[in-house]
């Protein structure tokens, strides 16, 4: 699971209103190279929940001194874009779980795939 995906995932346990972001508890993390595209990253930044991204990076020990808000004119700062690219697409959680911050319910991640199915009465 890449952190770009995590940024969009939220808990949907019944009745939960503060299910975002899901807490990451990783037991195995991998870094996989992926081709850098500056335009992709700079267009993606405004679509992200930035704070959640930083939080996720911290949980994985991959903060890389990313700022708490995106730098102004980030489109032209390649160094910054590359850091964001890495955290969005190259760092992957292979094993672990995602936890709903409100209900505590845990969803397993195995082989890089999170299982967010709820059982019938949840």
């Amino acid at each position, binding site marked *: *699971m*890449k952190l*770009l*995906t995590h940024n*969009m*995932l*939220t*808990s*949907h346990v*019944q*009745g939960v*209103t503060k299910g*975002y972001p899901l807490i990451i508890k990783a037991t195995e993390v991998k870094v*996989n*190279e*992926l*081709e850098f*595209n500056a*335009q*992709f*990253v700079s*267009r*993606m930044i405004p*679509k992200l*929940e930035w704070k959640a991204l930083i939080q996720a990076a911290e949980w994985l020990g991959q903060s890389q001194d990313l700022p708490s808000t995106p730098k102004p004119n980030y489109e032209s700062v390649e160094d910054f874009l590359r850091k964001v690219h890495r955290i969005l*697409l*190259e760092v*992957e959680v292979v094993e672990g779980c995602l936890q709903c911050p409100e209900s505590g319910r845990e969803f397993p991640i195995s*082989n*890089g*795939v*999170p*299982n*967010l*199915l*709820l059982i019938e009465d949840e």
Partner: protein
Amino acid sequence: MTALLMLHLELIMQELDQTVTIGATVPTGFEHTAAEEVQEKLEATARVSKNRGRIYFDITTDKLLKVHQLKSLDNLFVVVKEYDDYQFKTTKEEVQIDWQELAAKLPWTNALEVWKLNNSIKKKKGRRKRTKPTKSDQCGNVGTKSTDTVPSDTEELWEDLEALEVKGNQRDVSSQPENDSEEEKRSEIQDQEPGETPLKFRVTCNRAGDKHCFTSNDAARDFGGAVQEFFQWKADMTKFDVEVLLNIHNNEVVVGIALTVESLHRRNITHFGPTTLRSTLAYGMLRLCKPQVSDVIVDPMCGTGAIPLEGVMEWQNSFFLAGDNNGTAVSRTRSNIKHILKRTHDGGSSSGLPLDIVQWDLCNLPMRSSSVDVIITDMPFGKRMGSKKKNWELYPSCLREMARVCKPGTGKAVLLTQDKKCFLKALSQTEGLWRKLHTVWVNVGGLHAGVFVLKRTAVVFGTISEDAMEPHTATGSQKGSMKDASE
């Protein structure tokens, strides 16, 4: 041996550099997206045949390899000759005589040279070993009556061709000037295999129209007999070298030579499921949504992943999210991805793919609202998977949940379904969240299906009374109103 082959290839290409007409079969309904791809990548204008599911375009032979790399095309053939208005006689005997005359005067030479060139190209591409599907392939060919006959021992076939290839090199392969008689041309082709066993061939005929006094079997048999007599080739239905195509659509007749043995439409999938979508169809659907840089594209019912896989291979500047509720589907998708990654890594690249898989419930997506740009999926048909009754409950909640996660105003959905009635009814119940842009009618495994292209309206989800409640709480009241919907 390889160096000799390369040299041979270059020689042929130098001699040939001519324009040939290529015909291709495509999923019916996607002729225009296929023509777009041809224009984009080959800079050639394709014409769409009146015979659905076919396009034609002219290229110079140096572009042949690129043609094989196109993603919209199922099968390829080189046109020997096209007739716009062939006048068929009214008795079977007369028609048979006509086939004999025709076989003798067709301009075979150039097409056969292209066929030879094509064989070298296919060898250069290498053979991709594919595991056979465990369930029967239910997404059959569209628009053709012929079956996909793959020579049972493909390795042996390539060796035969290689032997022919080398022999051919010994003879000057220049195109004959126009006024040469057919006799000379025929012997030139013959002489290229001195002492070699004659080529094996079969004729595949597709016939449509109600004014013919013969069937496709009649035509295949009679034309086949004429071809055999002319070339002295051996007829063989399964282990053939040359597949001659005879396409008859009313008065339009096209004679071609096949350039693909296996259909190109299963290229990414090694691990099949019961309803795996053809890659060419998946590709056509993806073209319809025109993926942009940084688009988040979600397939919430991905099955074995045909659509996201095709997407991630072609549009690497978008991000693909593949989801399914079924654990087997998820693990098959993962296997298919691993296989693709291995293929690209073998080719030297070490890059990963902009794609993730999640196991989830489509009617209750664990995603933030308004986070998705495109939703693209193959919805359960109710015949091969699920049931029609289930669709009446599933479709409305699907469409609603998709509307929630999709960006208002800019978001799009491209949805394939055979249960058109149910789908349209469900659409009308989503209270102005979706607007129909257009529909492409397709044929999937013999079933008439529709690809619905929808635009997400600017209406914000949750502002209408019915969905003012949190989307993932019980939809009991909605279910009540569905119950009186009859088939």
